[in-house]
């Protein structure tokens, strides 16, 4: 496992800069984004004169005072503003330019700029959608970027899951770019064969992204493999099954998957609820792995970007993941690299075979009715023509 940890580091270092420098560049960008957003609505001009918290709230038309207090605390701690008795005032000049991290593609920069710009509105109770407007295009573009590719490779190096065929779930699969790369890795290893327990599933709550994932899978594989699309279509029965689905209500049976993967997903949802669901659908002895930014290493300004999307709880602590995991049937929770890569192994103990603490009965399709044999009861034929279940239907 230690060796796998090293391999995970090596993949991250291929990004070309020291991880420390990388982190600093990104942190500076997130801070600049948030300050710029509040500068645009006149907050820092307003704070040229010391103001009461109530006055600032009125100026910004704040309705979510808890979040506003968090923002204020961050600005104070970072010495952007100062406090004298019960009044706040600007402590430093706010730059007009926001430094762009070298590693971020333009699409990712634009996305985070949009999310940051939405924060003053969020304080007034206005959320934005994850992929509304041009954000859909930017997400689709960003998810194909080299940074996300290396993060994924790092996670796979650590989890070491592709040696054996598996029922593999990619939660928050987005546009399916990563799912396609994962599929190709298993394909390259010759795991897709009749009779083998091998199938990849991808879920995402965003219908537009799922449409992209589904519609462009053969072309993506053609790009990865340099194979002709016609040749790829011959393997259609092994293609991934993409469907709309929320990690907090995974539309699959208990213990259905051998491996569950979640990259940069947990901060967009209620992380504990999501973890419980991932454990529920993972078979005893199965693995859950992925990537996430955890406190204490995570950046508070980065966290604020996520708060504008409804349902997103933002970043959380590494120790919380360990605690929740152990409470809910994990044998071990390991975390490496500052990005960070996590790997959770579910206990093989049958007592944890079907823990369903947050499962909504309406979300579970039935593939195998035989719940006494969760590993063996799946009919491969059925799985290849898996029924689609959407939340709310």
């Amino acid at each position, binding site marked *: 496992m230690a060796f796998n940890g090293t391999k995970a580091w090596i993949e991250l270092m291929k990004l070309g800069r020291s991880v420390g420098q990388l982190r600093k560049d990104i942190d500076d960008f997130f801070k600049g984004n948030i300050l710029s957003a509040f500068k645009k609505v006149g907050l820092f001009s307003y704070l040229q004169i010391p103001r009461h918290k109530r006055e600032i709230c009125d100026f910004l038309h704040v309705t979510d005072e808890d979040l506003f207090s968090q923002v204020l605390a961050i600005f104070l701690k970072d010495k952007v503003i100062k406090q004298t008795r019960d009044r706040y005032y600007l402590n430093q000049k706010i730059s007009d330019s926001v430094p762009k991290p070298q590693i971020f593609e*333009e*699409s990712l920069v634009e996305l985070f700029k949009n999310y940051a710009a939405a924060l003053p509105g969020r304080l007034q109770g206005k959320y934005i959608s994850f992929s509304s*407007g*041009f954000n*859909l*295009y930017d997400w*689709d*573009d960003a998810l194909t970027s080299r940074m996300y590719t290396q993060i994924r490779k790092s996670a796979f190096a650590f989890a070491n899951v592709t040696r054996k065929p598996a029922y593999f779930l990619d939660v928050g699969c987005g546009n399916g770019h990563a799912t396609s790369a994962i599929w190709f890795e298993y394909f390259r290893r010759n795991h897709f064969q009749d009779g083998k327990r091998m199938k990849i599933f991808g879920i995402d709550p965003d219908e*537009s992204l799922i*449409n*992209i994932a589904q*519609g*462009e899978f053969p*072309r993506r594989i053609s790009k990865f493999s340099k194979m002709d*699309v*016609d040749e790829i*279509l011959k393997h259609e029965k092994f293609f991934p099954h993409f469907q709309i689905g929320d990690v907090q209500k995974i539309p699959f049976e208990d213990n259905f998957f051998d491996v569950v993967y979640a990259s940069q997903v947990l901060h967009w949802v209620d992380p504990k609820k999501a973890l419980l669901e991932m454990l529920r659908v993972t078979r005893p002895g199965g693995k859950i792995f992925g990537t996430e930014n955890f406190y204490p290493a995570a950046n508070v300004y980065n966290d604020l970007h996520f708060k504008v999307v409804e349902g997103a709880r933002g970043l959380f602590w590494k120790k919380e993941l360990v605690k929740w995991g152990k409470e809910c049937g994990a044998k071990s929770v390991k975390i490496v690299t500052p990005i960070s890569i996590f790997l959770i192994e579910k206990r093989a103990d049958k007592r944890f075979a079907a823990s369903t603490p947050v499962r909504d009965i309406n979300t579970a399709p039935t593939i195998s009715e035989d719940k006494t044999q969760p590993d063996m009861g799946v009919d491969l034929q059925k799985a290849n023509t898996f029924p689609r279940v959407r939340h709310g239907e």
Partner: protein
Amino acid sequence: MFVDVPSKLICEHTFQVFLDKNGVVRGYQRVDFQVGKQREIPQAESRQNLTGFRCKLCDLPMNFQIDDEKSYVFKQRMDDFLGSALVKYQVAHVEGNEMHLNTVIVDATGEFLGHIDAYAVPLSEFLADGKVTMNEPNLIFGPEGYVPLKTHKFLEILLFLNTKHARILELISPGSLNIVEVGRLVEEKVQETKKIYLNISENVLLNIADKNFRIWISGDNILVASINTEGFLAAFDMIAKQLVQKDFEEIVERTEPLKIALKFLEKPQSSSKDLHTFFRLYSDDRLFSRIRVKYPENIPRILERLKKEFKTGSELLDPFLNGQKSLIEILGSDIITRAWELFELIDFIDRRKLLS
């Protein structure tokens, strides 16, 4: 041909019914003068080159002249039989209030060899107040200015018929072909075949005017194709089965895209995507229309990405994304060879909800 209808058969008048080559009544006329009570049916022996036989339904003598097309309803050359060229004729006469239609075989000299079939049709079906009751067959040329394809690598003739409205749409044909006649013969053959087979919806081979035709039938629609490369049949069969199910009016409206789709089938190698691409060419207007991107300020970024994704140059993408030209306007006939890639490009844009 014309058929005399004696008085008291239908009404008190004697009149003549004019039939066209399909046995369809085109009209009638009153007889100005009548000699004797009833005109004798001429006997075969009394006229030269007359082929005589007896009606299979009423046993009355009938005759026709092989070199007088007015004396029979239609003729059709049949396959050689033991070295003899045989010809099929349909001949009609009126008996009582019915028209008897006999289909007979004669040899090259006009000698009667036997009956194929005979059936009676009530005259009342044809005559109502002296007007023609069947639809007038029309040759539909498609939209104004429409010109059918003159040549195709694999298809010599392609017609789309609608029997309910008696309409024919010419999709591929050499200019010399009498389309109306082919259409009529096809319809007639189909009617004959229907008497024998319960289901003739798929890929039936017919021989008409010395030419092999494949036909596909769905409801009132008949798709007629003369295929000059048999290897092409398997691929075209899948397309034809779907095409024949389309609404006739829709096909007429989409003749231009359909011509492009048909030309697409001429490409050197077939692939599993062809069926999908054919019907996209037929139905998807986005190749032929100018688009409007919802986020014009982001067109440079979209353009860069599309160039990477599809290895497509600015000369195509620039005017397309900026809504100055449609893909067909930019590429002309080259659109056919790049159809799959272009649909991928359009879908790429569409899935990302970039269009207004």
